[in-house]
């Protein structure tokens, strides 16, 4: 009886173990990726719905101190989660696959750390869609902490980034992304730099001791909220930079941020845009349009609380771009708390102050061209250049909860026939025409050989063998996935001209 009870107990513990295991490591898409309790989020409904990143549908790969994160990325398939345990990793990790999650595991306050030792360029580069990077400490790189190039649906959160060179977090050309709860310092350009992106939320981050805290550049539909930007040269920036392939920067909401004491001496690289930012800049809007600034606390910034300018006044040394409109248009200044700004302004600002016989510098200063801007109750601030600003019709931005999309950006073509068509004409047609010989045999000959046997083509083109003396050996097409080879084989067998 006792033995039976014991067996039962063991079985029960086993079952609970399996249940827990499934709970934590399960494969169902409805089971969230395990998040260390230290950073457990009080996820609100709708939080990152639609970003798609971080949805773990595949396996979990663990990386322990002494092994390589990149090796794990190499082994990972879309949907996999890579968990990185405490330790120091000296490497550049690149992710050229979709739906890969990199998750640090923080144990007793000990962080997994990527350390570039000031020899490596970037810590993490990604181009895939649906990439998630969280819970990593990143330090001592020369270029970037985390840089994305054209990856859509990205999530970058809970990272601690210290002196990673030019930028800390830099998604570029990405649509639909979330950057939240990161802490960044010691960056010589922008700590968080949203470059040529669309639909991004930047929130709950702390940026300090950088040249620029948060910069939204040539991007559209950006929500910057609940960030703490302090002790940078400039706190929060929205720019349209000329000479880039994206020619607009608009629809940016900057709200509920604490922008304090951004009086750090500018240590930007010569020639960089931010090297022109005067220390003491709380917020800077340059040539960007449709910017709404609401409910921020902007205080203790010695040059100016909020500066709104065109290229001309900004003194930026860039070649001009006929396709980039240089003015800041339709700036909406709603309720903000501003105090103690402008204690030690630069000479250009002082000159403007003198026109108003003011000894104190601005909470808000607008210079250069621009139309359609407005401000609510400007009398409470010290302002310069807002004479043409109307009273705002809008009173708040409550209707905007997020700029993330309600579903992930999807690839353009999903039908396998379309993929087959793209591959046939995009690749195969270099050597094969329908009824005539180019380099390889005509397609109608291939059709006769492989009638109802697409799989035969799928196998052959991955590892071709020399079959006929009158034709050169076909180069292997094993770089195409099996799925693509199947699609193109079926397409090839279906065409009639």
């Amino acid at each position, binding site marked *: 009886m006792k033995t039976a009870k014991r067996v039962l107990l063991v079985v029960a513990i086993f079952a609970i173990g399996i249940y827990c295991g499934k709970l934590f490591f399960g494969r169902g898409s409805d089971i969230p990726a395990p998040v260390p309790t230290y950073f457990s989020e009080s996820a609100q409904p709708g939080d990152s719905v639609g970003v798609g990143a971080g949805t773990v549908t595949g396996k979990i790969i663990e990386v322990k101190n002494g092994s390589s994160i990149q090796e794990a990325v190499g082994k990972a398939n879309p949907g996999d989660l890579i968990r990185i345990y405490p330790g120091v990793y000296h490497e*550049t990790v*690149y992710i*050229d*696959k979709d739906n890969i999650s990199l998750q640090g595991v923080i144990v007793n306050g000990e962080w997994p750390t990527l350390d570039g030792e000031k020899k490596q*360029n*970037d810590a993490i*580069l990604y*181009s895939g*869609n649906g990439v998630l990077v969280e819970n990593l400490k990143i330090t001592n790189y020369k*270029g*970037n902490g985390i*840089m*994305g*190039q*054209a*990856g*859509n649906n990205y999530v970058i959160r809970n990272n601690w980034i210290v002196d990673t060179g*030019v930028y800390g977090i830099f998604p570029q*050309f990405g*649509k639909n992304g979330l950057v939240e709860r990161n802490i960044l310092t010691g960056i010589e350009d922008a700590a968080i730099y949203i470059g*040529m992106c*669309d639909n991004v939320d930047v929130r709950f981050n702390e940026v300090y001791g950088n040249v620029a805290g948060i910069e939204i550049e040539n991007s*559209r539909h950006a929500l910057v909220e609940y960030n703490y930007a302090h002790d940078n040269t400039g706190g929060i920036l929205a720019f349209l930079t000329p*000479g880039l*392939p*994206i020619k607009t920067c608009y629809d940016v909401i900057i709200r509920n941020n604490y922008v304090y004491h951004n009086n750090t001496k500018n240590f930007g*690289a010569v*020639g*960089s845009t931010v090297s022109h930012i005067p220390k003491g800049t709380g917020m800077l809007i340059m040539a960007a349009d449709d910017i709404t600034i609401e409910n921020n606390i902007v205080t203790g910034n010695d040059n100016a609380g909020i500066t709104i300018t065109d290229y001309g006044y900004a003194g930026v040394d*860039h*070649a*001009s*771009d006929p396709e980039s409109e240089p003015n800041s248009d339709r700036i909406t200044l709603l309720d903000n708390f501003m105090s103690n700004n402008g204690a030690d302004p630069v000479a250009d600002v002082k000159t403007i102050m003198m026109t108003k016989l003011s000894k104190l510098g601005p909470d808000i200063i607008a210079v250069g061209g621009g139309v359609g801007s407005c401000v609510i109750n400007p009398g409470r601030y010290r302002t310069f250049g807002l004479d043409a600003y109307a009273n705002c019709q809008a009173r708040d931005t409550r209707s905007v909860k997020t700029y993330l999309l309600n579903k992930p*950006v*999807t*690839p*353009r*073509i999903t039908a396998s026939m*379309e*993929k087959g*068509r*793209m591959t046939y*004409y*995009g*690749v195969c*047609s*270099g*050597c094969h*025409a329908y009824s*005539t010989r*180019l*380099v390889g045999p005509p397609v109608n000959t291939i059709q006769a050989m492989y009638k109802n046997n697409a799989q035969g083509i799928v196998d052959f083109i991955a590892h071709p063998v020399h079959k006929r003396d009158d034709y*050169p*050996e076909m*180069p*292997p097409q*094993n*770089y*195409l*996935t099996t799925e693509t080879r199947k699609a193109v084989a079926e397409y090839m067998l279906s065409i009639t001209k």
Partner: protein
Amino acid sequence: MRIQLFITVVCVVVTLEVVLRSAPANGPALCNTCPPGFELTDANLCKLRSLYQQYESGQGDDPGVGGLKTALPAVRDGFTPQQIDLGRYLFFDPVLSGDGTVSCATCHQPAKGFSDGLKTSVGLHNTKLKRAAPSLWNVAFYKKFFWDARATSLEEQMTGPLYSADEMGTTREQLLKTLNGIAPYRDMFEEAFPDRASGAIRLDEIYTAITAFESSLISLNSRYDQYAHGYPEALNKAEIEGLNIFRSFVARCAECHTPPLFTNQQVAVIGLAPPEGSAFDPGAQETFHDASLRGAFKVPSLRNIDRTAPYTHAGRFDSLREMMTFYSAGRGHEAPRNEKLHIHWHIWEPKLTDYEMDRLVDFVKTLTDESFMPRAPETVPSGLAIDKNTDQKTQASLSPTTH
């Protein structure tokens, strides 16, 4: 493994047979199938098909710039097979020049990446020209032409060299008179432009046909592209290291040489000194009448860059390695002191190591793909000799290989 493959474009074979069989007065039959890379639609139009068409660009206005799996910019396609093939004859025919010695292919030689291997090109009567001949690969995607971005279409671009006294040295009148005087061309134009009532060859038809041919020069199947589409083994370790340096924010190459075309199609001042003995070239300053663009030039694509030495608008560097050294040596280090230049902010002092520069060279050499190389006609309707430089028999492998 590398295989020597010589593309034998079927149309050429057909053409030759027709030429041999029929009297020269009849034009060679024009090809009725599309060049590689294009699908023939029911409306007899050639539409580009590429694996890149499975991706979304992200940005709504479709600039076609970014990382690996990114859509291409809008393409200039939709010409008929006959127009493309007619353009091929015109492109290689020296009859388009004033004295019958220079064709488009003289400076845009297929075997040299559709450039000419010279520091700056040589025009009529051995006139040394100011700038280097740009490659024509992938021009179907471009919105601006010439190093100084002064033309906005291929049609507009070609009127530059055609009617420049130093380059092809013809006139509109002479061009029309010459082509209308060649019976085979009259037939070929009628075939390529069937909707018009038969009559004289028109200038816009000449421009359209050459544009159609140039737009068919597609190079998007390099080993890099295989990597980009999801086959990591397409590049070796050194080349992947090079890719990571290329796109890193230290070297910043990918900021202007943006995939998938490896150009962001902007103009930029990089602060090159003029070649010895030459005056400083103002570049896009003259196009836009803007002093801040002094010394600005179009960012060239790096596709097939291994074929197009020497490099820069004035052929300043003979090798890719020297080009890397220029970028690494510091912002404005060779800019003339008497020039006030607005050097691009991405030109800084990345202090790349020799090792890193070597890897960059390794990487950009993976951008070679000539699998859709067209074949020069054996003969052209004018009966003039085709420049022997356009012979492609000297060419290396045309096929993308895995290693």
